[in-house]
């Protein structure tokens, strides 16, 4: 899966989960400050990523997600490392 596809998928996932206006879910949007994500929805996001991309997202990874692009980059790395 290429980085662009992953980014689109992550954006769609954030949109579905957080129900914010679609134009707000840009790559540099900050999850907490711009998209109003709290700790409960951070956990939900981890769960949704695991389901969607069949990867493991340990709890310790979640605090490192600052922006939508961070999440996409993490997923990309995980998929590639597991494929290798």
């Amino acid at each position, binding site marked *: 899966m290429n980085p662009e596809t992953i980014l689109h998928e992550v954006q769609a996932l954030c949109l579905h*989960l*957080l*129900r914010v206006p679609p134009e707000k879910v840009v790559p540099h949007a900050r999850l907490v400050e711009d998209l109003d994500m709290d700790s*409960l*929805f951070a*956990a*939900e996001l981890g*769960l949704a990523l*695991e*389901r969607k991309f069949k990867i493991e997202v340990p709890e310790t990874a979640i605090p490192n997600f600052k922006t939508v692009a961070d999440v996409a980059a993490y997923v990309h790395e995980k998929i590639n490392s597991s494929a290798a």
Partner: protein
Amino acid sequence: MSRRVVVTGIGAVTPLGLDIASTWAGILAGKSGTRTITRFDTAKHAAHIGGEVVGFMPEKYMAPRLAGLADPFLHYAVGAASMAMEDAGFTENGEFGGRMGTCLGTAAGGQLMLERQHTILLTEGPKGVSALTVPLGIADMGGGYVSMKYKLRGPNHCVVSACASGASAIGEAANMIRFGLMDRMVAGGAEGMSPLFLAGFGAAKALSTRNDAPEKASRPFDASRDGFVMSEGGAALILEEFECARARGAKIYGEIAGYGSTADAYHLTAPRPDGGGAAMAMRLALEQGSVDPTAVGYINAHATSTPMGDEFEVRAMRDVFRDRLDATPVSSTKSMTGHMLGAAGAIEAIFCLLAMRDGMLPPTINQESLDPKCAIDVIPNVARPAQIEYSLSNSFGFGGHNVSLLFRRL
């Protein structure tokens, strides 16, 4: 002088409609809100019928991200309470929030949400379970969410007394105001439908299995009744201390004049055969209101359409009202709404208030042949005009709960 409690706002989501106006119009027209259940597969259940809420949009009242995940019970609790707040003239700015609290009842809480997450627990394991399972599944979150939305900083709790929960919540909230602990309360009840409860009530042989005629299945007091019809929805009332309500020029639906609450101390599900616990609840409600039974112009019965329950309630009413019962109109609106469980007592309180306001008594529909053991005036099939000063509403629940609320027209 003792503090009086009045109702200044009402809201509801029911199988008959998504607000008070449509629900009350349905009641006065004698419509049934029960039909074949479509929310989940009922093929292997004893009962395939229920009173589902259809077309409700929780996003109108809740944050969309939570509405999408929340249990129906929470949708209905927040929806009904929001409509009641708006009706009473309160906004989300929390102007009166320092002396205003919530008391919203439910029998089961977020049952459907918990059942779905439990299925995930069994199939995917604990890691698949949603982080919102507990906050959106627990029974108290109706009051919790409403307090956050409207910035109400008084007591915030939930009453659980099975099918009497909605009535208990109103009675407890009214007493908080009466005894000076609070000035305003949001009170009521909510329930969502779930497969486990349909199966559980079915196994206990409590449900009607008149699956081929869902609209005729709930028939309290009728000789051919065979159980209740499980239903869902929410109903909420804004209770205020009388002087506080008057000071802000609020419209007033009526007064909560009395509340009686007792236990049967007898059996898990069966009511006490002599109706003693229920009779005591009615007496306590009349006593708190200093009202003689002869003044009561209408009784909204608990009567769920079970063979035993309806008969024993008639016995209890006979014990309290004696010969006067023959001249007292009694109806069961569950014949139209089905049994909304934890919301039932709250919606029926609203029906009592509207009956007094409009001078129209709700009927008991599906009356073909009155059970001789229930030989009272059940207002058969058609609503009836009558000017009344007092009405009484009974609510009972598994566990032996008996609750009676007395309302006065103002």
